[in-house]
């Protein structure tokens, strides 16, 4: 029986269910110290003085002067220091590091820092420091707006969102062989390696990064682990001992990245019968105090800003700007949940103003194979916007329920969405990611830097190799990512691990099969010894992309989804309670149906939290509700019944037809929730739609 397409036993083994799997905090090394980060308590200013108000016996103390190489996190730009030298740009910015073997002494150590304070900037609309701007022009939007029968305008806002992986950030730095090893909860071991090389410079050539079992990531362990790993390494090198830094929940929430808040403005021209003729879109992302990944988050946000719709004359302008808050960063969906929220609520408002049924409006405008997207990409047969829409409407009996719920406290709404899989444009070509297969005495080992963070990397990759090589699934093992031992398969982000890295592995398996010449791996190994096959990713040759104009084939393929949310509104408390979500999603073909379904269910839950519950309260540039008591994510009691439908439309460039899936489910729930509320007559244009927000919103005229 084929492994691909069936829910085979997972390569994780039983460890996650027995408590035997080792996460960063479960590991100790002899002589290990614990590390602590002293952080800024102002959002903007300069350090005037630092006073260590404790007995320094047994302490290792590190500041920026201990950095051997460059004091900058090497990501897109090198503007963010590992440790503040003088200028503070946000609350909770790292200034000083302490380590001690006794955690009580460590926690009790007092450091007094005096500052010269400056006036902080918190309003992104007032920021003049632009990290990145994007301008995507297709056709002539001004002329098309002038021709339109109707113009609909609107502004939509989304808030921060905190990742709340249940395992907070944590790493251990261990001095070894003239260098240092990092063991940690990381999504992208090779990103950490790159950052450490820059931090340490040529004086410390031996650095490796090993991923420990990771208790969730969702983008939140994409960039920040470089920072915390750098801190642990500095302490370890100075003390000569292993150093463990594990954040507690409050520190993790206050100091690490969140989803970018966004303000999106739409100005749309239509014919009277509902055909889109012009879309003029302005996207503003609050980047926080340093560039981190904001340019690429903005890029994905802008490319998805026109939604899954056809419109010949489009202009999308985007900016990611500086403010004095901790940097915002990668979070599942990577800019698209913000802009797709905006366009989907805007479509609902267009339907209201034109008096057209919202499903009909989407039918008229949704993309079909052969249509051009906002970047001018001509879609191929793997475009399924209409398929998911029709399936969702039928399955939920949408039209009848919408009519039936009118005037009651129950309501129903939908959203149509898409998500590009893999890196944007020429990203995959530039990345040159690699994967490796190694013969073992019994079979093969997969050796890539792709991390298992709960989504099933190990299992999916093993399934692909099993079927491509034609050997038993049990004979395929998966190496723990260790940058000194595995191929750099690129970061575990952007819904690329199954589709892109899985594809390289499929090709490695084909090449290996040829080399085996009819022998089984074990037979070959006995006769000829070890054998390794390594290959680099070749994106489809038809991909054309211009990084200056942002025109061309933005993604090799897209996943498609339609979410239908039914909810009830408490007339007294204004609490909106989802009672049922139907998620119809097409992502090529599921490699492991149970894992794929888990991605949809989990992503949908995060999307519902984003829509209704998860409000980050910022006070003076810091998260004021930085506990799980005050920042609430969905519990069992908040989650509605979920009906998941996985439709197939194979993508020829993916392994066994698979597309990326991880992020797609995050895009749909928020606009579906708000569109359901709108159907009750509530003029909601913002999330999270908390009871306070709903109570204060106008009714639709």
């Amino acid at each position: 029986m084929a492994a691909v397409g069936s829910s085979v036993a997972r390569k994780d083994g039983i460890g996650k269910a027995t408590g035997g799997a080792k996460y960063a905090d479960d590991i100790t090394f002899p002589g290990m110290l614990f590390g602590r980060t002293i952080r800024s308590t102002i959002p903007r200013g300069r350090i005037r003085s630092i006073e260590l108000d404790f007995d320094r016996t047994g302490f290792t103390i590190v500041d920026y002067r201990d950095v051997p190489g460059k004091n900058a996190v090497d990501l897109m730009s090198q503007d963010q220091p590992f440790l503040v030298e003088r200028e503070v740009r946000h609350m909770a910015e790292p200034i000083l590091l302490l380590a001690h073997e006794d955690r009580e002494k460590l926690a009790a150590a007092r450091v007094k820092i005096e500052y010269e304070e400056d006036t902080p900037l918190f309003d992104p609309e007032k920021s003049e420091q632009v990290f990145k701007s994007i301008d995507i022009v297709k056709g002539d939007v001004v002329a098309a707006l002038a021709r339109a029968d109707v113009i609909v305008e609107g502004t939509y806002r989304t808030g921060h969102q905190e990742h709340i992986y249940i395992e907070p950030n944590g790493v251990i730095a261990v001095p070894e062989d003239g260098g240092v090893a990092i063991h940690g909860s990381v999504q992208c071991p090779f990103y950490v390696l790159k950052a450490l090389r820059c931090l340490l410079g040529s004086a410390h050539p031996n650095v490796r990064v090993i991923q420990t079992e990771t208790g969730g990531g969702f983008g939140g362990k994409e960039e920040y682990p470089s920072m915390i790993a750098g801190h642990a390494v500095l302490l370890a090198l100075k003390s000569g001992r292993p150093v463990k830094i594990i954040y507690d929940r409050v520190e993790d929430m206050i100091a690490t990245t969140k989803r970018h808040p966004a303000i999106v403005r739409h100005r749309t021209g239509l014919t009277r019968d509902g055909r889109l003729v012009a879309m003029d879109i302005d996207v503003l992302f609050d980047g926080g105090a340093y560039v981190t990944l904001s340019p690429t988050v903005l890029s994905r946000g802008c490319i998805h800003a026109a939604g899954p719709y056809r419109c010949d004359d489009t202009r999308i302008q985007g900016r990611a700007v500086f403010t004095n808050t901790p940097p915002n960063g990668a979070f599942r969906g990577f800019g698209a949940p913000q802009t797709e929220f905006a366009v989907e609520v805007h479509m609902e408002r267009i339907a209201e103003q034109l008096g057209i049924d919202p499903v009909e409006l989407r039918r008229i405008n949704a993309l079909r194979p052969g249509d051009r997207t906002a970047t001018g990409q001509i879609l191929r047969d793997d475009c399924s916007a209409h398929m998911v829409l029709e399936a969702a409407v039928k399955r939920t009996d949408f039209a009848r329920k919408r009519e039936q719920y009118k005037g009651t406290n129950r309501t129903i709404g939908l959203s149509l969405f898409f998500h590009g899989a893999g890196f944007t444009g020429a990203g995959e070509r530039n990345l040159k990611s690699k994967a490796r297969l190694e013969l073992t005495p019994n079979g093969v080992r997969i050796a890539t830097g792709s991390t298992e963070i709960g989504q099933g990397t190990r299992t999916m990759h093993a399934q692909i190799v099993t079927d491509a090589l034609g050997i038993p699934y049990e004979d395929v093992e998966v190496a723990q990512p260790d940058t000194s031992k595995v191929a750099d398969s690129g970061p575990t982000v952007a819904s690329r691990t199954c589709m892109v890295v899985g594809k390289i592995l499929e090709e490695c398996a084909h090449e290996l099969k040829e080399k085996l010449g009819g022998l089984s791996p074990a037979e070959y190994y006995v006769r000829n010894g070890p054998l390794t096959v390594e290959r680099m990713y070749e994106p489809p040759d038809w991909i054309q992309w211009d990084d200056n104009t942002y025109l061309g084939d933005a993604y090799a393929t897209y996943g498609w989804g339609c979410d239908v949310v039914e909810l009830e509104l408490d007339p007294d408390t204004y609490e909106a309670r989802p009672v049922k979500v139907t998620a119809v999603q097409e992502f090529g073909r599921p490699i492991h149906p149970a894992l794929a379904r888990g991605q949809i269910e989990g992503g949908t839950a995060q999307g519902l939290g984003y829509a209704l519950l998860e409000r980050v309260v910022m006070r003076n540039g810091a998260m004021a509700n930085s506990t799980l008591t005050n920042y609430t994510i969905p519990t069992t009691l908040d989650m509605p019944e979920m009906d998941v439908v996985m439709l197939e439309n194979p993508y020829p460039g993916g392994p066994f037809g698979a597309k990326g899936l991880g992020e797609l489910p995050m895009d749909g729930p928020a606009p579906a929730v708000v569109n359901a509320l709108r159907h009750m007559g509530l003029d909601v244009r913002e999330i999270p739609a908390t009871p306070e927000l709903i109570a204060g919103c106008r009714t639709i005229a």
Partner: protein
Amino acid sequence: MKFTLNGETREIAVNPATRLIDVLREEFGLTGTKEGCGEGECGACTVLIDGEPVCSCIIPVSQVASAEVTTIEWLNGGHPLQKLFMDEVGAQCGICTPGMIMAALSLGPAPTLDDVRTALAGNLCRCTGYAAIYRAVLKWRGMPLEDGAGGAVVA
């Protein structure tokens, strides 16, 4: 002080204010009990005290004097619920899983979906949206999958 840990009587000399989770993880090396928040909100640290699920991060060890404490390690990997959590993908990243399983053990023999939701209301999972967890628990108890826990998958 003395208490029973996974069926054996243990004696320790620690500051009585030490959190139970620290005693389990550091004194006894039982790292299956996880810390997600340290404030009693996420349930990752759930253990059984005299059969009742409790957050071990907010309990001083003095409170379990002469009580019976049970951790995930006591199940020894052989409990059917453990296998079901993996097979049904009730565990994705797995950090919430030991706590979830310990909380689920307190369920009676024929739980409804609502019983399961109530029993697990103090345990956060950020990965699964809980549906696969319901499937694992209901299957363990031989209960039919109701709407919201089962749901057909059309492909």
